[in-house]
């Protein structure tokens, strides 16, 4: 017993920051960024907090699904860049929707949307009365990036993606792996002003080791996809689309090469949005769904990897 996706939605803030814009504030250029990560531009919030972007994506998903907020049994949300630690992101979105259902958050960085789907499947199984769950990934990555660090500030963008899940049978399998540790990807939190705390603290900004992240990402994508195919007795020919976390185009292209599949099998929109962490898979899914290239009945694989370290993939019938 699981779910099927009956609607998707996304929201990105209107301001676009190009590679040329970034070259004015940090030592970089369009050629280097395009070659290194495959990003040409990203959306950056000027006026909206993370919850406000999440709310807009949620509203778009509900409209797409033709579902009212009062029909929801739960709102699950994920973020690593919320404007508040409390209330949680899901609480803020629940309030904005005028819903009265359960609201809970998941913290799993770039893999969080897949963690949300897994959790939703579990909740549908646990609560026979649950019919509809809203899942949202929303990020204001620009709020946790050091814009003097050219190795990270060129990569990330802001935005939100959401999906409405209805009780069903279309979430077939998943693989989730966690290798806890902060030596590859780390985002410290604000450490406070306690005069008694003696430990050294760090600025609340993204830290990422590029090469280690690349190797981990490609390994996890290839292993997770191969695992799902094998366990479900499928080949790549049975899969209409792979929707990967949009971290770096070279990761996606190299994973396709290692899997020996055409890179066109992987949906990619990173050139427009950059890496939006937990929002990247639902934003990609929404764009793919609205493009007309995804048909009901298509089998798709969603996959993600990132801070934790955590990586996840799932097999869904659209």
């Amino acid at each position: 017993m699981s779910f099927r996706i009956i609607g998707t939605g996304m929201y990105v803030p209107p301001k676009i920051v190009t590679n040329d814009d970034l070259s004015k504030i940090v030592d970089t250029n369009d050629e280097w960024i395009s070659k290194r990560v495959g990003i040409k531009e990203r959306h950056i919030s000027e006026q909206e907090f993370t919850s406000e972007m999440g709310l807009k994506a949620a509203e778009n998903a509900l409209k797409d699904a033709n579902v009212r907020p009062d029909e929801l049994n739960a709102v699950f949300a994920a973020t690593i860049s919320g404007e508040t630690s409390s209330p949680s992101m899901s609480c803020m979105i629940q309030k904005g929707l005028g819903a009265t259902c359960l609201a809970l958050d998941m913290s799993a960085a770039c893999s969080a949307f897949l963690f949300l789907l897994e959790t939703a499947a579990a909740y549908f199984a646990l609560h026979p009365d649950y019919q509809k769950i809203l899942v949202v990934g929303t990020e204001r990555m620009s709020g946790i990036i050091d814009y003097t660090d050219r190795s990270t500030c060129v990569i990330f963008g802001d935005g939100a993606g959401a999906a409405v899940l209805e009780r069903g049978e279309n979430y077939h399998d998943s693989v989730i792996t966690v290798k806890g540790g902060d030596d590859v990807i780390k985002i410290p939190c604000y450490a406070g002003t306690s005069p008694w705390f003696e430990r050294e603290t760090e600025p609340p900004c993204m830290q990422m080791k590029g090469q280690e992240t690349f190797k981990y990402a490609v390994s996890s994508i290839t292993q997770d996809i191969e695992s799902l195919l094998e366990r479900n007795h499928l080949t790549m020919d049975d899969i209409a689309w792979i929707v990967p976390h949009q971290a770096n185009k070279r990761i996606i292209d190299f994973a396709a090469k290692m899997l020996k599949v055409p890179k066109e099998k992987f949906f990619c929109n990173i050139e427009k949005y950059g890496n939006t962490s937990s929002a990247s898979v639902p934003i990609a899914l929404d764009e793919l769904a609205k493009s007309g290239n995804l048909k009901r009945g298509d089998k798709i694989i969603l996959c993600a990897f990132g801070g934790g370290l955590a990586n996840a993939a799932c097999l869904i019938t659209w």
Partner: protein
Amino acid sequence: MVQEKIIELLAEATDTDAAEITADTAFADLGIDSLDLTEMAMQLEEEFGIELEMKPEINTVGKLTEVVESLKG
């Protein structure tokens, strides 16, 4: 065999004629970046069943060949 594979991968990554790449060729001279090196390392790992960490001092075709040969056993 190892050196040939390394040259093949570098030629493909840089769109260079493999005949122009020798043991003395430095990676820096080919205009490849750290992600190119990571990609090559992963392909060599798969090809030869090894675990390879690309350190800065492994900076030529010859040096990489030696390291891979020693890891292969």
